[in-house]
């Protein structure tokens, strides 16, 4: 029996999602022979398509800030660079404060955010109502406003990145779950799927909510587990709302909620479940709509008449401290982690994709090294992100 020639790649990316696709675009763009494998039938069918599309750089740590600033550059200039509309809209983000407690939290955070040079400011209730006239003015204290943040369509964006990746020479294989990481002498040699073995020098774990299972193929125990969030979309109505509105007041069943109007007119909204709903269950619950509807019409009574069209759930691959896990495996050479995006994969994707390409090609700069240090798979996970 003759041995089948094993196709060899410079890099294999596991996961054609929010991270894997822009990463493949950057890797292939740097001339690397790149293959992306996914168990689903097409791109973005894991959690990417469940994202509502919010994109902000206004985090509370320099690593995510830097990556997302770069992502915003990619999203916001895509149409002029490539001619494809990914529905980017610079509507900004507003975190509202209706109580002193949230006012204090947000203002403390603001100091940190400003220190990183972010364009974000405190608006008092009067200024905020000028920005968002439909906010419930009763008890409104004010809020932070970051005008450079925005939104885009995850569905269109991932396809734009996908087409660009193909253009750059990346290959994609769908309906091919990875069953084995082929390791020779402590070094990545490739991966196995039901179609056989694909050889590679580097394998990137960008498997999102399933990154734990892929890590285990390389002997790593990644502290990534999915938290199931529920979202919904409405009918499209005439434009009435610019920023993403985030209310961080905890309530029964949810630790916060947020909504924005997409550029095409639909309102999208989401909650963070409290307590977390761990696991892979993405079946619709009866509790979500009543819970979120009450909170939304309280903050914005005008929303009571907007028709809800569809609900769904998506998985947030959470880490214990709320930060991604990015970096080389110490056990298996050439096994690179890009996991645990904690629900921010869509906004981190383009920036992180470029970073991964620099890391793989040995071109990481100092600021990349700082990010890698913060996101190290081997860090102490006991810290907590200030604002999730």
């Amino acid at each position: 029996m003759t041995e089948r020639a094993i196709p060899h790649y410079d890099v294999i990316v596991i996961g054609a999602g929010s991270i894997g696709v822009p990463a493949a675009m950057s890797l292939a763009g740097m001339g690397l022979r790149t293959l992306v494998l996914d168990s689903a039938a097409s791109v973005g069918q894991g959690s990417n398509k469940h994202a509502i599309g919010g994109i902000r750089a206004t985090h509370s740590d320099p690593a995510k800030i830097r990556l997302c600033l770069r992502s915003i550059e990619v999203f916001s200039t895509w149409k002029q660079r490539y001619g494809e509309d990914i529905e980017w809209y610079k509507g900004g983000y507003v975190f509202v404060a209706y109580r002193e407690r949230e006012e204090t939290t947000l203002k403390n955070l603001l100091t940190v955010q400003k220190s990183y040079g972010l364009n974000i400011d405190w608006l008092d209730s009067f200024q905020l109502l000028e920005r968002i006239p439909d906010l419930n003015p009763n008890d409104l204290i004010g809020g932070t406003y970051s005008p450079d943040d925005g939104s885009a369509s995850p569905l269109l964006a991932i396809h734009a990145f996908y087409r660009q990746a193909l253009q750059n020479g990346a290959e994609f294989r769908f309906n091919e779950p990875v069953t084995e990481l082929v390791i020779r002498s402590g070094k990545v040699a490739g991966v196995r799927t039901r179609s056989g073995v694909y050889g590679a020098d580097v394998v990137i774990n960008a498997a999102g909510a399933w990154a734990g299972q892929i890590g285990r193929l390389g002997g790593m125990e990644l502290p990534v587990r999915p938290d199931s969030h529920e979202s919904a979309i409405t009918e499209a109505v005439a434009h009435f709302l610019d920023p993403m509105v985030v209310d961080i007041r905890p309530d029964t069943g949810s630790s916060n909620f947020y909504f924005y109007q997409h550029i095409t007119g639909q309102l999208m909204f989401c909650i963070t479940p409290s307590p977390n709903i761990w696991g892979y269950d993405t079946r619709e619950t009866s509790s979500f709509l009543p819970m979120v509807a009450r909170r939304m019409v309280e903050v914005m009574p005008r929303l009571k008449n907007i028709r809800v069209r569809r609900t769904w759930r998506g998985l947030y691959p959470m880490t214990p401290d709320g930060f991604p896990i990015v970096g080389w495996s110490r056990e298996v050479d050439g096994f690179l982690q890009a996991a645990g995006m904690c629900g921010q994969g869509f906004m981190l994707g383009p920036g992180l994709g470029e970073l991964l390409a620099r890391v793989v090609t040995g071109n990481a700069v100092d600021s990349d090294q700082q990010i890698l240090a913060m996101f190290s798979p081997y860090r102490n996970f006991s810290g907590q992100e200030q604002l999730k």
Partner: protein
Amino acid sequence: MRVAFKGLNAGTGLALNQSIGGDLTDMSSYRIREHPILSIPERKEIPFYWQGSLLEALEGETISAALFAHGIRIFGHHAKDQSPQGIFCANGQCAQCMVLADGQPVKSCMHLVQAGMRIEPLEGLAELPIVHETPATKPVRLVHIPVLILGGGPAGLSAAIELGKLGVETILVDDKHRLGGKLVLQTHRFFGSAQAVYAGTRGIDIASRLSEQVAQYASVQVWLQSTALAVFSDQKVGILKDGNEYVLVRPDVLLVATGAREKFLAFPGNTLPGVYGAGAFQTLVNRDLVRPAEKLFIVGGGNVGLIAGYHALQAGIQVIGLVEALPEVGGYKVHRDKLVRMGVPIYTSHTVVSANGKDKVESVTIARVDEKFQPISGSERSFECDSLLIAVGLDPVNEFTSKAREFGMRVYAAGDAEEIAEASAAIFAGKIRGLEIARDLGRSVEKVPDDWYHTIEILRSRPGAVYPEKLPEERSGVFPVIHCTQEIPCNPCATLCSQGLIYIDQSDIRSVPSFMGDASSCRYCLRCVAGCPGLAITLVDYRQHPQTPRVAIPYEFTRQTIRKGDVVTVLDTEGNELGTADVLAVSTIRAADRTCVVQVQVPSGYAQRVAGIRVQDPTITRAMNQYVQHIQDDTIVCRCERVSAGEIRALIRAGYRDINEIKAITRAGMGACGSKTCTALILRLFRDEGVPASEITVATRRPLFVEVPLGRFAGIDEAKGGQND
């Protein structure tokens, strides 16, 4: 002497209007003011405004009915391509009939018109109304119930009756303002078994009877104007009760009796105002009592298309023709015969090529098809018409069943939601499910008898063999001629004959009936003529004039359209003209229930072949001199998001196989209707492109299955109107 073709009482709406009131601005022109079967209720006139003009509506009618009554059929324009929008489903499922009513965007087919209401077209996206006060919210009520039935049509009602008899606590929800489902639109007599399922009774009357029975049982709660929105993973069903209160219902057993939805077709011009599904058309005509068309063309020769054509004729609408892609119509032959006897040409092995017109249908182009159902170039013909009725089959409304199964609920389905068949089968299936559910709940109920399952199979069966028509050799006396030559599940004639002389094998009612008497045994009671649901029995009476016998023919048009002394054209079962005949008498019999019997005198040579009276002038059904070419590529697959067949086909040809991905790129299936219309069309495009089903990944389905304002989930009380819009 009056001439023939008087079945249609008005050529145009204006003529009718002038004959009644004369003042064009005063009264709506497109109302149905007389109907052979439906009684026209007296309703109060109320004023409303359309784009600032004062018009009249009738109290209790929907906004869409009020607009159609004035010939207004364009309700706005789509935000994406400014295409004209109007009625499509007339069933609250899509959002294409949205208008602004006093500033609020509403579904005009569900929202009732109010006195003084100001209605504006919806141009592009609606402004979300501004709200000044913080509304009071309240928690959602949770209701536990042994049985929840979704849908108050024939299946749901029949199941509720069985459960009611046994005292099982049941909630029956239906989104309409009255029970009956699609029965309330069916003016014709039903087929099926007279013993098992009300055969011979009109659908509208079956609806009333079943509703009255359900009302007798205290254990059955009926929630009208209540829409099921979703089945959730915690086994609760979300229902918008009374169009207002969002309630979660946790049943021990769920029965899905949600009926069917219509399939649609992709062809150029397929979304022009004037292209309707049969359900929408029947709703407008038989519920709203408006004429949405003057000249109708029908696509699809199943029972739905055939019956809708007959209903159109009864409502005074001209039917220009019917196309069917198969070599034979799929519906019952007696339904087909009824239509051709009225003077409606049926084009088998033909398909619709395009609907033509700028902002509305002005003509249709059809063509002969080859063995692969592709139009044959050069065979095109066009017909003038203002409406196109699409009746190309039904699919079960099964999203609730599949979600409930996925979530491990005890769920049953009945009627069209389980398997597409006639309403008679749905009635019987509901009855069986009711008993099965009672047993499932541990009630001491006898097992459903095996022969019931046999009966349901017979009722569900497709039309069977057609036998050549055998006319009696007798030329004297009096006897019925039975023009019913196809095996269909139907037996009322066997119970109608006062002498018991019409025989159908009761062990299988699909067998064709035969007359067992001789020329002297018939008493000429006319019950078989007036009572056959297929209008397929005549009586030929040679006794007075053996050379020019008297033939009694069933006739279901208004009495005013035919009188003694008129001359009419008589036709055979195939619609062939036999000759003219004098009307000797027009009568009704007590048992006949609105079917007239017209007696004509004809030569004995063809007396037995006479099967009907032409009611439509044949010249209106002629093709245009030249066929209308449709150049624009405006075949729409997703009506809500205006996605064309061309866009989808290009992706398929580029190798796309995951419908989720096609959806993500094009937005096909992301609109208000929830991919109810385009799913089947996209699969059809894949088939046409030769892609095997095994390569295709189907799209994930998510609730809600009908759009509902966010405030309802917050328990905000909006009692006005009580409509789900």
